[in-house]
């Protein structure tokens, strides 16, 4: 994918291209940094109990957010895969690991588009954990919800954004 500006924001091709590059970014991050394959999941993510969300803000050529949402168990597995040590509980290291995964996915995703690679800036990750919360974002013309699976665990990524006018 190159030059997202060549397409109109509302054009279905933009969403399809963003989805494809998101799948590619997730697989690249997991295969390279976690040593495990990660592919889109057929079922939607369901979390009972505590969940963890990592948020990366997007600004510049495109504004919005990329949110990674997962269960405590899947977050612990991500941290274990990254560090080579199983965390005893969902602690600050697990939060840090989930934030970094989200950060790398956002960076790899925008890196697949020549315009976004230089023109879209990423915030540092913010991680939220708990049993009952909801993340709100401005209504965005482009919204992509994808679920992914690795090691029999699942997580979801939501990309909400609009191209700069």
């Amino acid at each position, binding site marked *: 994918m190159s030059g997202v500006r060549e397409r109109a924001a509302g054009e279905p091709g933009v969403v399809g291209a963003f989805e494809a590059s998101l799948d590619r970014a997730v697989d690249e991050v997991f295969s*390279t940094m976690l040593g495990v394959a990660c592919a889109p999941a057929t079922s939607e993510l369901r979390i009972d109990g505590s969940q963890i969300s990592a948020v990366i803000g997007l600004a510049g050529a495109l504004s919005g957010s990329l949110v990674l949402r997962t269960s405590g168990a899947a977050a612990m597995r991500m941290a274990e895969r990254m*560090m080579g040590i199983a965390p005893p509980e969902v602690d600050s290291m697990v939060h840090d690991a989930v934030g970094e995964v989200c950060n790398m996915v956002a*960076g790899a995703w925008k890196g697949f588009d020549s315009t976004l690679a230089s023109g879209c800036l990423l915030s540092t990750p913010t991680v939220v954990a708990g049993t009952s919360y909801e993340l709100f974002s401005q209504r965005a013309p482009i919204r992509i919800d994808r679920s992914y699976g690795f090691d029999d665990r699942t997580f979801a990524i939501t990309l909400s954004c609009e191209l700069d006018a």
Partner: protein
Amino acid sequence: MSGITVLIVDDSSVMRKIVERALRQAGLDLTKVLEAGSGREGLEALGRERADLIVSDINMPGMDGLEFLRQIQSQGLAQGAPVVMITTESGEEHVREALAAGAQGYIRKPFTPDQVRERVLPLLVSA
């Protein structure tokens, strides 16, 4: 490559450990690893101790990696040590900006141990 003191600057403690592991996998015999969670902490660490290699993230709260890079150049804190930026930012402008600020190498996250080896080892040989 033995007897290396490295300074790793990243606001993520997980990423600092991953970078350390990647450097060891690349064949570096790290005798000392200095860790800093921000550019400010990185400057303080270099004020106390010389490093043979400096590896820094760019996107950090507080003093970011580019400002850290400019500060160590202007204050002479690198003392000849090569500086490698490891970051999610992959745009050519970011690379040019980092190199202009004094970085000798640039690695994009996610990275493989081979990429670390290819980008870092030549810098230590020529330093």
